[in-house]
């Protein structure tokens, strides 16, 4: 338990000449729910994309489960258990809910276990079970987010990366999504959560990092961060 599942050291990412991430360190331990909060354009999403190879880092190291995973091709991460639920959900709009979930298990071969995972996802999201034969593109935003999370669970992630799960959703739906995130965490799935909704994220997480223009400015227990005055002013609107 002492070794971190994910360890990011001095990570730097640049798009052309623009430095989006300027040397950050962070780690996620087995079983933890860690939140990465910050304003728009702080580099949070870029960090997540770099973790799954969709963006290549310019410097620094990423160690996942004891292996250097920086700069692998994007399709290698699912096998290793590093799964991203992308910003804006990224479901397959013209496939049914069930087909979307099956896509999540694409790299797996164990038919029986896939079926039982499918049942588990439907237990978590009874709503999706009702709509399993509906095209994902015709679902509401919240339901699509459920499909995206369910699809990620179908890949049996060791570490689930969530990019802005609350984006574009009504407050009541956001509450619901976070309830589900807590439920998944309670089942022992390790998660790294990127959120603009700092209050909700910190209330849900064990630990938190605060990111500001490409740098991590604060790192502490979520409760401590919630009580921090500067954070309250900057992010919590209090």
């Amino acid at each position, binding site marked *: 338990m002492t070794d971190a599942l994910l360890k990011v050291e001095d990570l730097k990412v640049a798009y052309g000449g623009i430095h989006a991430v300027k040397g950050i360190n962070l780690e996620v331990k087995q079983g933890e729910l860690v939140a990465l909060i910050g304003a728009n354009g702080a580099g949070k999403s870029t960090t997540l994309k770099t973790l*799954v190879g*969709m963006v290549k880092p310019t410097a620094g190291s990423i160690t996942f489960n004891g292996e250097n995973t920086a700069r692998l*091709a*994007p*399709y*290698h*991460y*699912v*096998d290793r258990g590093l*799964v*991203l639920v*992308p910003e804006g959900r*990224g*479901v*397959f*709009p*013209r*496939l049914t809910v069930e*087909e979307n979930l*099956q*896509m*999540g298990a*694409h*790299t797996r071969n164990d038919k029986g276990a896939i079926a039982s995972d499918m049942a588990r996802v439907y237990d978590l999201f009874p709503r999706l079970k009702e709509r399993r034969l509906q*095209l994902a*593109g*015709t679902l509401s935003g919240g339901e699509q987010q459920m499909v995206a999370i369910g*699809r990620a669970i179908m*890949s049996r992630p060791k570490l689930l990366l969530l990019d802005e799960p609350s984006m574009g959703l009504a407050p009541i739906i956001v509450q619901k999504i976070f309830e589900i995130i807590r439920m998944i965490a309670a089942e022992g799935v390790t998660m790294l959560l990127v959120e603009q909704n700092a209050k909700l994220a910190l209330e849900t997480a064990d630990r938190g990092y605060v990111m500001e223009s490409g740098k991590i400015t604060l790192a502490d227990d979520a409760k401590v961060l919630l009580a921090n005055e500067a954070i309250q002013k900057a992010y919590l609107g209090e």
Partner: protein
Amino acid sequence: MNFAFMKTRHGKAITYAVLAVILALLPWMLTGGFENGKSWVRAVDFALLYIMLALGLNIVVGYAGLLDLGYIAFYAVGAYVYALLNSPHLAAILPAWLIGPNFIVMLVVAAVFAGMFGVMLGTPVLKLRGDYLAIVTLGFGEIIRIFLNNLDRPVNITNGPQGINNIDKVHFLDIDFGRPMEWLGLTFDMVHLYYYLILAFCIFIIFVTLRLQHSRIGRAWVALREDEIAANAMGINIRNVKLLAFAMGASFGGVSGALFASFQGFVSPESFVLMESIMVLCMVVLGGMGHIPGVILGAIIVSITPEILRDVINPLQEGIFGRRVVDPENLRMLIFGLAMIIIMLLRPEGLWPSKRRAREFHEHDEEAQA
């Protein structure tokens, strides 16, 4: 009509049995029923070749969603590979063991060659989609044709615009497919023999595409078509899956091309013009992209209709006007184009679409009703 009984196990068996009998007897019904029956069997032979082509293109366009406007190039590659190895043209230059190889070996060689050309086209266009991909593939198709047209100098490989003549007919299982054969009191002419040969390969290719559809690769192609980035995030190796689609589709074209060359006995670059690529694409789109029965239907309609029109229009014109007013060739294209426009307006999803595709086009109707 009620097709429900066909879905039961018993009904399915009966349907297949009836279909098999019809397919087995078709050439005899044609030669028995029509004065120029042999030319009809010939038309059916070509329809079967087009079914193979359409199914191959369906993998690239229908499954993987990669618009290919130069597909006929792979047909050309298959045809020329067969032609070069089975004609006197290169017989003096090539080592003897290369000339006239076993028929099955020959088809495999044609398929592999065409598949390699598929990868050759696929590699540079990995990052292209939609219109841009269409333009590059269109160019590729033309490049192949122009090469075939001009590779008679400095070394004469393809014999240029004159094409390659005297291509051997298939010899297989002690049957010479070029000679009439007596069997069971029936005379099997070349068109009949080729009918059964091409039909066998056609059924094989239908079987392969059916298996592919619900395989892991089939699902990867669907994911690729729907959303490349999301597919990547599912752990799908986009590059390999795309190249596989190109290679697979191309190899079907290659097999079809090789059969074409031996059937026709003659190949020239003229058979592989852009219009042919467009025709094959029409078959796929008209029938129902991504749906195997639909694609087969499309291929039959598009390849047989002109033959029917040819037989109908001339007598009709002569009957009405006493002479030929419009060249049937031009009229055919006119009617054909009009039919395409009407069908695309009324049934954009194709004549016999998959359930999925029909839903995509009519999801809004459902919403409107709800």
